[in-house]
Each structure stands twice: as C-alpha cells, then as structure tokens.
C-alpha cells in the first residue's frame, strides 16, 4: 500500500503534459495552421481542430476519406494528399484534393479534386500510400515522398502551383526501404528523411519508431549517423516509445517561427488513455546537425537559469544560507586541528549534524514582504527564493503541446506575473489572470523560452529576458540572442 502510494506520488511528481480534449487519431497529417486554428487529418476521414494547439476537438471530414493523408500550405491553397488501396496490396494510389481554407465555415472552404499524383501497380517494389510533402525553402520546388513496406520509399516532384505531379513521365526516385510514413524536412543545407520503422496497429504491442537519415540533395542518398544508407535499411533513431506512450509514428514538422519548432506524431498506444492511438506535439531540437525529439515540460520544481548570465531567477529578498549562517569562528590554519567547539573536520569540515536538509520555505519566508516582491538574477545557492514550481493550470487553455502554466515559488502560492509596464513581479498568491499564465516552449537548442500569456495593456508578445548581470525583464523575443533563453534545472 505504502509502496503504491510512493509510486503514485513519483508518477505525479514528474507528470508530462499530454494534449487535451479529443485527440484520438491514427496516421495524422502534418499539423497546419489556417486562420488561427490548427488542423490535422488522419486515416478514415478523421480530423482534429484546435484553437491553441493544446485542446483539440473533432473536425470536419475532408472530401476523401483515405489512408494517412498529408497536408501542406502552398500559396493560397492547402494541398492534401490521400492514399487508397485500389486492389490487393500493394496496389494503391495517392490523390490530391485541395481547398483555399480548412475552416468549414469559411466561404473559401471547398475541397477540389486534383487527381492521382503517384501510384503502385501491385507488382512493382512500392506501395503508394503514406504521402509526405515538402516545399523546399531554397527553391520553392514541391516534393512528395510515399511508400510502405512493400518495397521502396519513393520521391516525385509536384507542381507547387497546382499540387499535381510536375511530370508524370519522370521516374520516381527510390530513397529508402523497410519503412513507411515518411516525410522530408530541410534544415541548414541538409534534407532529412524521417520515416517510421516497425509495426503499426497493434496497440501497446506496436513497434513503431521514427528513424532518419540526411542528404545534401533532395534525391539522396540519405545516410544515417553511422553512414548507412536508408535504401539499405539504415536509419538513426529519432523517437521511440517512452514510459507511457508506445510506438510513435508519422512525423510532421510544425514550425512556429522565431526558432521554435515542434513536431507532431501519433502514438499507437497512449497508456494513460486506455491504449488509444492519439496525437501528440513535442519540441523539435537540433544538435550537431541532427534533429532530436524533445519532451514537453514536466511539472516539477526548477531552478530557472539564464543562458546568458548563468544566474538564477530569484525573489529580491535576502537569502538565508542553506543550513544557516556559517560560524565565523574557526581553528587557525583553516582546516587543521579542531578548535574547541568548532566543527569536527576543522573549518572546512562541515557540520557534525551530517546531511543538511533542503530549506523549508515556510520558515525562511516569514521575513519576506507580504506584498508584491521584485525579481532579479543571482548565483544559485539552493535557497528557497530561487526554486520555482511549474505546474499546469486547468481550464486556462494552452499552446501547441502544453497547457498554460503557473510559476510559483516552490512550496508557496507566490506567483510570477507580468506587469503593465512590461516588467516582472511576484504576487502574494496566484490569481489565475492571464498575466500569471506562462507559455514555456523548448527552443531548438534545448533551452526554453518563457512568455506570459498576456501583458496588461499590451498586445505585443513578450518573453522573459535577462538584462545586465542581475536583472530580469520582459521584452520582445530575439531568436538570435541568448538573453531570452533559459535552462530549467530540475530540483
């Protein structure tokens, strides 16, 4: 019983956020933003829509209800590529439909047929399903990869104006083998092919995992980090199963701008939702030229450390040394023989009481002001005014991948808040106002951007910013600077 309780507490103590609402979907397309709403489409005509990327609900089915669609916004059109079996596998084709809006209430919402863009005849080494589209940021060329376990992942070029096949006589290029649910992305001179290995559709027994290779040319060869070509079965692991989410597949890039990238996927089994197949959105990081699957923030206590200064966010109150002030008296020679009444190991020998427990914030905070307290940066000394609890706020909305969060002094309800002059303050108690709700996005280098949901009397989004060596403010996020980048160090 006791063990169960501890296990439950540990589980809650490091709870990761999962998307909210109706998120059941299989083979989701890339998540696309249209007129302020996020959309994704899955197998069988399923679709999900969200105003904030956190809470999702069922959306309208598109005009074609095929398999594993992908979606891309090019010009004034949303191109959707949807596969269907046209006989016994691997005989299939991929059809284009397009609309100028994804919002069924918009006058521009109307799915038009665009025809077949790729197919497999049932005999060739390909199964023309699982399309994935890329608009090359370098030259504006539009590409489509597709394929499944019958043979190769293939590449064809599309017309970016119409979304249709650019030249039907061009022979598709083979890129990879023994995978499915592939897609291309581009980053700093490299093309990355992300494809799903393993088996799908078996719940928590599924073996789906996302693997990758990269190439200098869109046509390949795509080599993994060991140099093995994906056309020979290579592929470095990008994302595998985690403790509660089994078998990720169907990568989709969600670039939010300002250096914030996320990716969507589905898990074959979300153990917290009865093993259902669900959508997730997670941070996308980059290191040494390779993408890394980040994790959404887990609730807990943190030091919030500036990547610029190396100093920690704290209340502007006088700190108390952990364990109490050090006695000034010490033996001659600092650490030699023991002095009467001094610590047993000499001046540097520490306390005879052994391990020093963490500070009790309820004790050290008794002398803190009861009203608002300013913030500042200081060397981290493990003191109570330097530790922050970050936790989800229910029914307050969110942003792609996470609910809005509150940031409170660990052990207290004293909350971090934005002020109407674009500065920071800690309020005596969390009120739930938008100035006390925080959006915390992991940036591509693994640091975090921390933004209030709203700044009173301001429409401009601002981010937590180190200014000078010991000061902190809010200012417009600058992706090129480290002043808005923070390390969250678990306490």
């Amino acid at each position, binding site marked *: 019983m006791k063990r169960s309780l501890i296990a439950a507490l540990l589980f809650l103590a490091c709870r990761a956020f999962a998307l909210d609402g109706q998120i059941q979907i299989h083979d989701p397309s890339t998540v696309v933003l249209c007129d302020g709403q996020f959309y994704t489409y899955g197998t069988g005509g399923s679709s999900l829509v969200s105003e904030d990327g956190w809470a999702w609900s069922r959306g309208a089915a598109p005009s074609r209800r095929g398999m594993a669609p992908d979606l891309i916004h090019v010009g004034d059109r949303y191109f959707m590529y949807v596969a269907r079996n046209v006989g016994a596998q691997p005989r299939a084709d991929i059809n284009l439909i397009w609309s100028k809006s994804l919002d069924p209430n918009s006058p521009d919402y109307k799915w038009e047929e665009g025809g077949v863009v790729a197919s497999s005849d049932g005999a060739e080494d390909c199964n023309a399903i699982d399309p994935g589209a890329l608009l090359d940021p370098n030259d504006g060329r539009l590409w489509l990869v597709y394929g499944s376990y019958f043979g190769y992942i293939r590449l064809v070029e599309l017309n970016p104006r119409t979304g249709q096949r650019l030249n039907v006589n061009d022979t598709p290029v083979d890129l990879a083998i023994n995978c499915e649910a592939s897609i291309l992305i581009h980053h700093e001179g490299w093309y990355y092919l992300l494809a799903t290995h393993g088996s799908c559709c078996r719940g928590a027994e599924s073996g789906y995992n996302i693997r990758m290779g990269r190439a200098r040319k869109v046509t390949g060869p795509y080599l993994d980090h060991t140099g093995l070509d994906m056309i020979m079965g290579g592929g470095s692991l990008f994302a595998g199963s985690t403790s509660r989410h089994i078998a990720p597949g169907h990568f989709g890039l969600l670039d939010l701008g300002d250096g914030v990238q996320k990716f969507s996927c589905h898990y074959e089994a979300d153990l917290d939702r009865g093993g259902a197949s669900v959508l997730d959105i997670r941070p996308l990081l980059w290191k040494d030229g390779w993408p890394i699957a980040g994790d959404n923030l887990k609730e807990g206590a943190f030091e919030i450390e500036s990547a610029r200064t190396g100093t920690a966010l704290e209340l502007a109150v006088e700190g108390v040394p952990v364990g109490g002030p050090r006695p000034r008296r010490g033996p001659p020679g600092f650490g030699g023989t023991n002095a009467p009444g001094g610590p047993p190991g000499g001046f540097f020998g520490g306390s005879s009481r052994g391990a020093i427990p963490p500070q009790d914030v309820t004790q050290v905070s008794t002398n803190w002001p009861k009203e608002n307290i300013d913030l500042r940066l200081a060397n981290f000394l493990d003191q109570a005014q330097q530790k922050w609890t970050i936790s989800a706020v229910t029914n307050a909305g969110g942003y792609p991948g996470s609910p809005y969060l509150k940031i409170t002094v660990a052990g207290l309800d004293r909350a971090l808040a934005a002020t109407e002059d674009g500065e920071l303050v800690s309020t005596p108690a969390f009120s739930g106002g938008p100035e006390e709700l925080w959006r915390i996005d992991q940036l591509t280098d693994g640091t975090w951007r921390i933004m209030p949901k709203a700044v009173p009397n301001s429409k401009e989004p601002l981010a937590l910013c180190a*200014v000078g060596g*010991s*000061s902190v403010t809010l200012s417009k996020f600058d992706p090129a600077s480290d002043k808005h980048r923070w390390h969250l160090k678990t306490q």
Partner: protein
Amino acid sequence: MNLYRRIFLTSLAVFHSALIVIAAENAGQLHAISLTPATSAEKAPSTDGFIQRWLILDPIRSNTPLTDNAINEAVKKEYFPGQLSLIPRDGDKVKVGETELTWHAVDTRDYNVNLYHFAHSRGAPTSNVLFWAVAIVDCPEELRDVRLAIGSNAASLWWVNGQRVIGIFGDRQTVIDDGVSKRLTLKKGTNVLRCAVFNAGGATDFCARILGADEKPLKNFIVRLNAVADQKP
C-alpha cells in the same frame, strides 16, 4: 660602484620616497591615479556610454553588513540633511555627526569611478565606509524606456530623480551592467542620478551608464558640473 655605496644610495632613495609619501598623506595630496578634479562645465559620456563625471562626498564610516536588509535599513538613516534630494556643488560641505565632509567634483579617465583612489588620495578610510555620489545628467530631450545600468564594489543603492531604481547587495565586484533598473523616463533637462556605495574592505569602485530600449548605451546627453540653475552667466 661598490656594494656599500650602492646600499647607501638605495637606502637614501627609499627614505626620501617614504618622506614624500608621509608628507603627502599628511597633506591629503596623494595622487588619485584615475581621477582628476572636474573643471569644465560639462562632460560627455565615454564612447561606451559610461558617466565619467561625479560629485562624490568624502567617505562616511559604516560597518553596515552588505546584506539586503542591512543595506536597506542603513539608507533609512539620515547621515546628512537632504541626502536623497540635494544637488551638491564642488566644495560644498555637509556635517555627518561631528565630522564635516566635502563634496568633490571629479572626472574619471576610466569606465569606472575608483573610490579607493578617491578616498586614499584624501587620506580617508577605504574600508567599512559609505560613499554618496551624484551625477547631474542633462538630456536634450525626454528619453523614454531607458534603463540605468550599474556595477559596484560592493553593495549599492541607486536613485534617479529621487526614485529608487536599483539595489545590489553582498560583497561583490564591479561588473558592467550588473544591476539594471526597470524601464524609466529621463526628462528633458536636468536629471539627478544618485548612489550610495557601501564597502567592507579592499578595492571599491562603481560604474554607471544609461541603456536605451535596445539595451545599447546612450550617449546623447551631457553630465554637468553644476545643475543648470547654478550655472554662472
């Protein structure tokens, strides 16, 4: 030169130097290496925006610990009348207890103001002291959303036009832009920057500049020797 002669001459030189130092200390005339008396009516900030002209009061003895609460409590004490409001002139005197102290207008050659040089050159203590300093900043136009950015050795409190804007505490060294105020407005014309710097022991100095909304240092102002109303025709 034989050995005995060399020792004799060396000893003589050392003795002579010592006499000079003693005489200078007695007269309070040690050269303040980095500081010179301010004489011109106005001075522009340095190329990096640092304010290089200050009116500094002779140091006040203070054994105040450098912690937040102790420093905040210490400045509530009135050391001299108008300590948070007066705009001093070079040579003005105030009485702190029974001791008469003088305001000195100085220019620094460096980005920082070396208070150790300042005090030592006057034969004044440099440890366990409190320095008050004032800069008279004249802006050609209103400057909005600017920030005062300072560094100090050691703890210091800062006011702009009577409003407290920065407090940094502890036994710290001077780091450029260590403490930065919230956004503030400097009015067109005279603005008064004031600081109280507490030192426990060893070196002591401070630096200050004004940052624009883009956090780059501002240089479109001048620092006056005297407030405009005091200017001689």
